[in-house]
């Protein structure tokens, strides 16, 4: 047959037309390099009104130069874009909506811009289609939200357009894969153009345009926690977690959320964990960013492997010197991958532990607060039982057994999902509430479901300075509620407890106080921390960790 059905190739034709419009802007041997000062012109040439544009940016790496250029395009020419983003983090991101360049968005998280997003919604300048988890959003890139144009960031490109994404590879592979194989245009900002790359993370034929940005892309050192700020109460809670949960279930594969609470656990492994004889028995394999606070545990031989969502500023040399632990390329530098690490955290870990702003009496937790539209990034995937999981482990089987109320039911393992909070945060804000702020936020945003980070039925343990509530062992809604109230301290939720019922639960081991675990509160001092300062972390790393300036006092 000689007939060709052009109707099947509209995407290719569209891409060819766009590339044609930009042909006068390119130079270099590969015909892919565009000068930084022509970036706005490039974007105006290849982006069409109404396009789905994926702008790379998460809570760490940002394609910030491309974001700034996109905010400078002529809104008469480029408008009504549908933005796809992991994290709305920069002022330029929200400026796109102020200027009418973009009109709708699908995203995962909006930390620092949460209040501005809420204002834009109120002003009718933005349409938020949905807030996802990272994995959900990546998934939709391959189903119904495939980008027409992807604007990404890499460490370096070579003359052909091959990319080296360095330790902070993060979201790049997922985004490029979706765009490049569905007629999308891939534009990358790089920090430098080199003759040869240390390794190729993205092959040149997936990349259409390369721009040498005037400044290195921004990276937020989000996972660095200064041990100097860890309190004795956090040390106490960390001791309870190690003895009452990690040792109890033999938790080997896990993920930690960000925060001082979890940093305290990491810093107690080589001291308290070692004293309890737990080396090799807990915390051996991690889905985790390279937390500087994990250095002492790694050095003490606690840790066998760490796969990471992204990297962490200052950890590069240390990671390169510990290839047995971290995932590194032949060049020696780390390769992170947010999509794979999220999948690992969801399916291959036995435990997630993290903190939150509010927990209700059902165990639902949320970081959503009034006046801010924030989303939850990866936490909902980490902090959810993996219903598709089939492989067994000691921790998973034991948790499942504890949850099984009726021996006739089909046995099924459970992921341990732990919420770790002090009963009051700073300024006496209670962590336990009768009703989550998320309800009001849902009303104001017109959502059917309040934005819950981790649903109560996924939570297995709640840890506070008052003790551990094991929700797996609760056999009724009423028991669950009293177990939660029983560790909620002097919050209103805690003071409304049924004291008798709480003592019953304690007798059954559903609630465990520090003393029930054989932990003396007076032993919970900062002297237990394997590092008490950032400088201690540097020393523990043998001088390989090079913390960003803002974390130094030397």
């Amino acid at each position, binding site marked *: 047959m000689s007939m060709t059905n052009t109707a099947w190739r509209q995407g290719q034709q569209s891409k060819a037309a766009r590339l044609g419009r930009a042909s006068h802007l390119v130079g270099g041997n590969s015909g892919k390099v565009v000068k930084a000062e022509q970036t706005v012109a490039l974007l105006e040439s290849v982006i069409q009104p109404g396009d789905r544009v994926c702008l790379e940016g998460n809570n760490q790496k940002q394609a910030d130069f491309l974001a700034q250029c996109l905010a400078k395009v002529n809104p008469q020419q480029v408008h009504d874009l549908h933005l796809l983003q992991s994290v709305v983090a920069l002022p330029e991101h929200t400026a796109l909506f102020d200027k009418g360049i973009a009109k709708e968005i699908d995203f995962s998280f909006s930390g620092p811009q949460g209040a501005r997003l809420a204002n834009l919604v109120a002003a009718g300048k933005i349409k938020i289609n949905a807030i996802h988890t990272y994995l959900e959003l990546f998934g939709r890139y391959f189903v119904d939200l495939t980008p027409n144009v992807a604007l990404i960031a890499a460490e370096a490109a070579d003359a052909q357009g091959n990319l080296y994404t360095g330790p902070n590879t993060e979201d790049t592979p997922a985004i490029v894969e979706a765009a490049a194989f569905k007629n999308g245009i891939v534009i990358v900002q790089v920090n430098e153009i080199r003759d040869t790359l240390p390794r190729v993370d993205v092959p040149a034929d997936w990349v259409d345009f390369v721009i040498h940005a005037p400044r290195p892309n921004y990276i937020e050192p989000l996972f660095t926690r200064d041990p*100097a700020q860890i309190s004795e109460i956090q040390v106490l809670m960390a001791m309870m977690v190690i003895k009452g949960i990690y040792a109890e279930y033999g938790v080997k594969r896990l993920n930690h959320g960000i925060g001082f609470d979890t940093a305290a656990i990491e810093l107690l492994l080589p001291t308290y964990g070692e004293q309890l004889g737990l080396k090799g028995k807990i915390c051996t394999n991690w889905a985790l960013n390279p937390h500087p606070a994990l250095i002492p545990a790694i050095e003490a031989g606690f840790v066998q492997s760490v796969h990471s969502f992204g990297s962490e500023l200052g950890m590069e040399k240390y990671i390169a010197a510990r290839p047995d632990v971290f995932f590194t390329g032949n060049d020696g530098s780390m390769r992170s991958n947010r999509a794979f690490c999220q999948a690992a955290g969801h399916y291959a870990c036995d435990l997630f532990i993290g903190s939150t702003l509010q927990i209700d009496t059902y165990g639902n937790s949320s970081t959503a607060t009034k006046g801010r539209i924030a989303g939850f990034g990866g936490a909902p995937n980490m902090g959810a039982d993996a219903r598709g999981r089939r492989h067994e482990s000691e921790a998973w089987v034991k948790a499942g057994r504890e949850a099984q109320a009726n021996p006739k039911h089909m046995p099924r393992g459970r992921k341990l999902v732990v919420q770790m909070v002090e009963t009051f945060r700073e300024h006496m804000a209670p962590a336990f509430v009768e009703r989550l702020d998320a309800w009001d936020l849902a009303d104001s945003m017109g959502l059917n479901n309040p934005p819950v980070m981790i649903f109560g039925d996924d939570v297995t343990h709640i840890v506070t300075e008052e003790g551990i509530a094991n929700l797996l062992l609760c056999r009724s809604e009423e028991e669950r509620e009293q177990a939660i109230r029983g560790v909620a301290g002097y919050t209103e939720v805690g003071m409304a407890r049924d004291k008798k019922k709480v003592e019953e639960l304690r007798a059954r081991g559903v609630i465990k106080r520090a003393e029930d675990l054989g932990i003396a509160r007076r032993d919970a001092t900062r*002297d237990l921390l394997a590092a*008490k*300062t950032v400088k201690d972390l540097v020393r523990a790393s043998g001088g390989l960790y*090079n913390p960003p*300036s803002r*974390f*130094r*006092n*030397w």
Partner: protein
Amino acid sequence: MANSFLEASARERVQAVCDEGSFQEILKPSDRISSPHMALLEQPVAFDDGVVIGRATLGGAPVLVAAQEGEFLGGAIGEVHGAKMTALIAKAVKEKPRAVLLIFESGGVRLHEANAGLIAVSEIMRAVCAARAQGIQFIGLIGGAAGCFGGTGLIARCCDVLIMSEEGRLAMSGPEVIETVYGVEEFDSRDRALVWRVSGGKHRYVMGDIQALVADEVNAFRNAALAALDSGKVGFDLENLETEHAMLTQRLKQFGDCRDAKEIWQRLGLPSAEELALMPADEFVRATSVARDVARGAQ
């Protein structure tokens, strides 16, 4: 008790630096000598108004001690706080101890009682100098998180001997104030490595502003204070004033065009700032001993 000087409270520092069990507090918390002005402003007070004073021994020698509590209002000096220090020095003139130990941690004058604080700072400075002229040695210790700034930094530089850890800071204005007035290009207060290169113990040591650089350990401070007793005494006379004048004059000639200790260290032929930053105190002292003499104009 915590081993870190930085993490220790004023009371813990006094206990750890002086001979064990020797400290006898003057005006105890239960005497309730707190600020009468904070109450008027409806601000919480401290039982000791943020400074602990008393008698102790150091290596068996009688000393008087004052220690500022950096967590209470940044250790800032108000009327009572200042008067406790002034009075302690007046007491030293009467009792003639071997030395007065001043453990500084203070942002300077307490804004809530600014006039009283400012006057108090000048009273303490006069008192320190006058007592030194009478042969009493003053040993200052700096290693708290709040640093030693403003008027307190002036008092510190009136002492015979200053002992610092690299975590300590000694300066006039804080970086935040300078940034607020002249912008982030003048002084980026979030660039903490820069902040420490401008005001931290290592820089101050190379410049000759302090006599000893020690690790952030209470014992290291104690040992340096013991070593300073008498041997570090410089008196208060024209000769040592002129020596200081020569040092400060040649500093401006030699380094007056610099804006970062990196430049100074480079000019002195020292290792890179990154290397210096990571050196433990003893190693740093060894590595910089020649350069320090050049910087001080000492032969």
